[in-house]
């Protein structure tokens, strides 16, 4: 036992020396994750994008439409950067990508409204820019709905109704929406919590298969095998331990910055998120190692597999497009990725504050991904003894 521990320590020291010789490796380990942290926290600083550029086509141009557009101008998401009388001009601006939406009030709107001839106002959103279009659509729809209601309100006031009676007529059923755990619909909270740890997990997968592959590439695998005395657990532990420590510290740093400094909601407390972070690091290392075992000695194939699958796990985590809406095979596939399970755990624990037993499957899945390579250690041993580096 003592001897095994001693071997682990020797391998760890050897690994640390190897890091110091490879600047690119250090860059990927430290600079990249911290760079992502900086990028995404500053990119989504405002939370939800606000004041998105749109165009106003006011062909009518009366005091009524100006009042309407003033109100629209005060809304959170809309910023009329172009005010014009020509729809073509607005449409061209949209095709040049300067604006995301057009609000159009056709000629004669006021007149038709006053004489009860049901004018039609229209708005156009550019849904190739999905997020911007959805946000602007919400504003403009609310505005158009309110324009009609304002007309009825004016009529009812003239007839002597009280304001509460009027509201009971205009909007008898009010919908109060409660997005749970993230009441301001702050994209940054969820997206940063998915992307930044996700990129770190991708880095972990890549560096795990890289550092194993490098042994074969440099023809040092036999030496490593002897140092570990043929004990697979000791070899893998010794080799991955420095990375585990570094990545866990980085993960914890993220947690502290997110929940303490940026004050993202964390209903379960920071220590528990740190525990899930640690599990996520282990699971990602397990995933990387598994890929290496799948292509023993073929560093490049293992890394290619890690990158192809690792980039895909962002889509399959299911934040922007829900997993439940995907075709069945992808719903199954999502389960092999550590990021999916980490994300589910995060949402349930930190965002919603549910008890642990509601996410036990994901926690167990993370542990299974971490431990799974042990089942294939025979294959790794075989690689150590009989496989050479293959281009």
């Amino acid at each position: 036992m003592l001897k095994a521990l001693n071997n682990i320590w020797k391998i760890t020291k050897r690994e640390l020396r190897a890091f110091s010789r490879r600047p690119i490796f250090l860059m990927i380990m430290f600079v990249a994750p911290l760079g992502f942290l900086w990028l995404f926290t500053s990119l989504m600083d405002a939370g939800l994008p606000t004041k998105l550029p749109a165009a106003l086509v006011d062909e009518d141009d009366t005091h009524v439409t100006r009042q309407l557009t003033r109100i629209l101008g005060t809304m959170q998401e809309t910023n009329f950067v172009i005010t014009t009388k020509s729809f073509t001009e607005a449409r061209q601006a949209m095709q040049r990508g300067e604006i995301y939406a057009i609000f159009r009030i056709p000629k004669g709107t006021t007149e038709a409204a006053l004489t009860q001839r049901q004018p039609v106002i229209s708005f156009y959103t550019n849904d190739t820019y999905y997020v911007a279009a959805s946000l602007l659509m919400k504003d403009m729809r609310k505005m158009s709905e309110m324009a009609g209601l304002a007309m009825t309100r004016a009529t009812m006031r003239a007839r002597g109704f009280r304001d509460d009676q009027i509201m009971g007529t205009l909007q008898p059923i009010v919908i109060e929406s409660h997005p749970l755990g993230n009441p301001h619909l702050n994209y940054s909270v969820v997206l940063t919590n998915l992307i930044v740890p996700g990129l770190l997990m991708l880095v972990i997968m890549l560096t795990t298969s890289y550092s194993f592959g490098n042994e074969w590439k440099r023809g040092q695998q036999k030496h490593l095998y002897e140092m570990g005395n043929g004990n697979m657990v000791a070899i893998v532990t010794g080799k991955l331990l420095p990375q585990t420590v570094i990545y866990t510290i980085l993960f914890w740093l993220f947690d502290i910055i997110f929940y303490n400094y940026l004050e993202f909601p964390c209903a379960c407390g920071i220590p528990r998120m740190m525990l899930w972070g640690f599990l996520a690091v282990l699971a990602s290392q397990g995933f990387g190692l598994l890929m290496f075992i799948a292509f023993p000695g073929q560093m490049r194939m293992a890394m290619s597999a890690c990158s192809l699958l690792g980039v895909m796990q962002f889509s399959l985590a299911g934040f922007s497009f829900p997993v439940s809406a995907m075709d069945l095979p992808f719903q199954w596939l999502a389960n092999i990725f550590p990021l999916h399970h980490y994300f589910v755990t995060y949402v349930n624990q930190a965002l919603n504050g549910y008890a642990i037993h509601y996410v036990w499957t994901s926690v167990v899945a993370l542990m299974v991904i971490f431990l799974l390579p042990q089942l294939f250690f025979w294959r790794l041993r075989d690689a150590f003894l009989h496989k050479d580096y293959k281009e």
Partner: protein
Amino acid sequence: MRKPKFPILHVWLDELSEIVKDEGILIFIILLPLAYPLLYAMIYNTETQRQLPICVVDDNMSDRSRDFIRRIDATPEVKIATHCTNMEEAKELMRQRRVYGILHIPREFNERLWRGQQTVVGLYSDLTSMLYYKVEYLAVINVAQELNRNIKVLERQGNATTAREESVARWPIRFEEVKLYNSAGGFAAFLIPPVLMLILQQALCLGVGMSMGRSREHFRGLVIPPNKHYKNALAVVLGKGLVHFLIFLLMGIYMSVCVTRWFGLPNLGHFWEIVGFLVPYLAASTFMAMFWSSFIYRREDCILLFVFMSIPLLFLSGVSWPGASIPPFWQAVAGIFPSTYGANAYVRIQSMGASMGDCHYELTRLWILTGVYFLLSWFVYLFEIRRSVGRTILK
């Protein structure tokens, strides 16, 4: 020494034969651009969430509340999976992820409506995905607005004598909501086009980087073989670049024509316009790949360097996260990558039917990037050739 007649041709043939022999490079320049778009298109193929299960807590139990619930159940967006007797039961279902939202109808729902007062219906959404909130909110608000109009016209102002009068009371001002260019509001139609462009750039970087790393490994840190054809930097840059450029031009056409057709993605762009855009985009990406690759000393290093850039680049392109909300510093950073302009120009040509003139800004930037990266990689090869000559002399 006799000068070789067409050094570009030699370099070109050399590079091509090296690539064809190397399966590691082939994975990135053939398999990746062929298969990855299919995979992505399949993930998002369903376009949107339909029939999302939600549960309802109906404390009112009147014919009107049942009518409200029935109408919501009939929307394409959500389906009422279960009825719960109280909120606790509903919350438990939500925790077990059997439903993704709760609709709560208050006890005095119908009574308040009869009294002519407002009543508040609660909608609680799970935020595992932003789309859950969006579809639930849309379904419920649409039904509520429809009912509100009915109540207003038929109950509160029940004095309309003609159908026309009723219609005017219902809609004093009508509005039309037009979703341009992605009329179904689908996810694939929004996300896949920019992703296709990113795949092109990233696969190019990986392929070029790997071929560079391979040369360095074979020629002991040099990027060019000690060979008389490799004396002219211009010829080397153009010859090598042309191989990757041509392969990826084919891949670009495959994505914008085949993948787009197979999965019914937006394809308003005219074929020659797409080619006219792909040429500067791929040229800029090729030279950028050649320049960045000069920092790569081992073939596997390029995977470390390029792969994880994909996700940040997607965000910086301004397609998934609105470009108008990106801070100026990051806009500047985004400006040095062709994918930023490529994704936007492609979306505009393919999804929005913009002409080359409408994409003038992006195309100019792409040509500028092509020039800059071409010069940079030319310098790299000038330096490398001098280094290799120096080394031969030392020998």
